[in-house]
């Protein structure tokens, strides 16, 4: 069974994280799509931390013998990996969009320069 101190500390940690996320949403520092993911992660961690019987059962299913809280570590690591992958995707997309914007800007600048030269020649 999970030591009671681990349950308390992990629960407080999860609650603290939920609190921080909630505050960030309240101040509009997090966009909706991200806030939802973070809230979900916080809730899952809180459930794993506070629900001792549930954690025990889950550990049994996963074949984790001896120390059930390692399931919390596993879940945490999984979420971190998923979020990092998600950021890689977002950065790739932003970088593509940034490139396209830079190209369009350069093409427009050239066109504008050409037009102003033409109108100077005409006038």
């Amino acid at each position, binding site marked *: 069974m999970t030591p009671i101190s681990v349950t308390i500390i992990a629960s407080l940690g999860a609650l603290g994280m939920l609190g921080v996320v909630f505050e960030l949403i309240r101040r509009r520092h997090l966009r909706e799509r991200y806030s939802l993911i973070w809230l979900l992660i916080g809730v899952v961690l809180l459930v794993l931390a506070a629900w001792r019987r549930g954690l025990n059962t889950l550990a049994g299913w996963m074949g984790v013998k001896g120390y059930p809280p390692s399931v919390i570590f596993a879940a945490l690591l999984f979420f971190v990996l998923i979020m990092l992958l998600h950021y890689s995707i977002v950065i790739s997309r932003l970088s593509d969009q940034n*490139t396209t914007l*830079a*190209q369009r*800007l*350069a*093409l427009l*600048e*050239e066109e504008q320069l*050409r037009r102003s030269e033409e109108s100077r020649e005409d006038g």
Partner: protein
Amino acid sequence: MTGVTLPGLAERRRIAIVPAFNEEGSVAAVIDEIHSFDPGFEIVVINDGSSDRTGEIARSRGARVISLPFNLGIGAAMQTGFRFAQENGFNLAVQIDGDGQHDPAELPAILSPVLAGEADLVIGSRFLGDGAFRSSFTRRLGIRLFAWTVSAIAGQRLTDTTSGFRAVNRRGIVLFAADYPRDYPEVEATVMIVKHRLRLKEVPVQMRERATGRSSITALRSVYYIAKVLLALFVDLFRRGEAPMEDA
């Protein structure tokens, strides 16, 4: 006027795309040489975030200059040129690097197959013919690997898939304007042509030593280059068949 006349060249709306990143020492000569080969070429220098006077020098030599706000790399720079070519109705484009290693006197070699309608993309190869090419071991290894891999994918013998001395017709321009690989684009662009069932041809050319500056590909980078391009080619094999090209 030019001493060289190629059949069909005069009827084409033709553009020379010159990617240049800090090439103030060589870009003027490149522009002059293209113009003396054929004054009918619209020369567009893609100034890829240079910190030197590349842009001003190119403009003063009568080239159009498209200045990217910051360095995007050769792939995105070339795509900018192809977008310009597509939007302005050009139907023949050549790529000539701003560092002076591509000799405009060799243009007839890469232009002829496009003008004759034999190919949509023509690559000037350093390895066809007898021109000796000295380079580091890793670079030679990489070039060999690419040639072998791309030849297998394309089903035709190719020797110099990293060459940036190229000519494309309107279909190639439209394709590359819509989608052009990043970072080290030449090898992947070659495969793209094959995947879209466009025709590809290699012709022998002589290349010069770089006039000024140094190659952007250093020893350590070439290992990364090889890995990155091989991965891209591998992933390409698992992509579904590309959409058929709309007629240009």
